[in-house]
């Protein structure tokens, strides 16, 4: 697992991280932050590999990673279990 943190108050809800996450572990909140935006949340911190692609694309510098540990489940298995595509269709 990676020690990933999304700053809900910095997030403006653009969703770019949602489509960038290769494992589909990011979704948008159902409540608003103080600025009136839905914000990004990590659904499966345990299995986040810390690839930081979400950090790369985030225009608001709202995502940070502070080191990582080994994931509980092998990466290969995670990607087979849930795909980004499946999760995206849920949003559309």
């Amino acid at each position, binding site marked *: 697992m990676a020690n990933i943190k999304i700053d809900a108050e910095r997030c*403006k809800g653009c969703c770019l991280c949602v489509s960038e996450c290769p494992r589909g572990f990011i979704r948008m909140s159902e409540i608003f932050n103080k*600025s*009136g935006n839905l914000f990004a949340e990590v659904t499966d911190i345990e299995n986040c590999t810390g690839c930081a692609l979400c950090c790369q694309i985030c225009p608001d510098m709202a995502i940070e990673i502070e080191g990582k540990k080994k994931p509980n489940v092998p990466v290969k298995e995670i990607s087979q279990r849930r795909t980004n595509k499946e999760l995206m269709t849920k949003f559309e």
Partner: protein
Amino acid sequence: MANNQTRIIIAGFGGQGVVLAGNILARAAVIEDKNVTGMISYGAEMRGGTANATVVISDEKIASPFVEVPDVAIIMNQPSLDKFEPDIASGGLAVINSTMVEDAGSRTDIDRVSVGASEIANSLGNARVANVVILGAFIKRTGILQPRSIVRAIDELFSTKKPAFIEINTNAFNAGYEGAKSV
């Protein structure tokens, strides 16, 4: 509302349609041949942040288009209420979107009317018509313009570019008109 003049401020988040709401009100006033001025606060930021529109409606000539002390504040969210409640004229009115406002304020010398504008808009199938829902509550309470003028203004605004929006906005207005509650 001295000198037959009503000074209105409409405030909310950018994207909540405060400018459109002001536009509808101003057009309805023109339909009734009243004098009217409309202004939006314009800024560098395009989306997000807070936005407000001011409309002055009068039977007589309007000197200043500015609204320092509104007779009516149409409030779409909590930060806007916090910001504008202190400015409302004594004996004035706050029209409140109760979905987005938890604390309706502390002034005892103003009237309040509330409507669950965002909730009603959602139930109508488009969260973005909350601005027109709240106009319904405003017109119901004040009667400063006739409902049919608002409906005609909606028609004028959308008929050329987005005719599909006429129906939902008209429904939104009616729902707000019916759903207004005194607080």
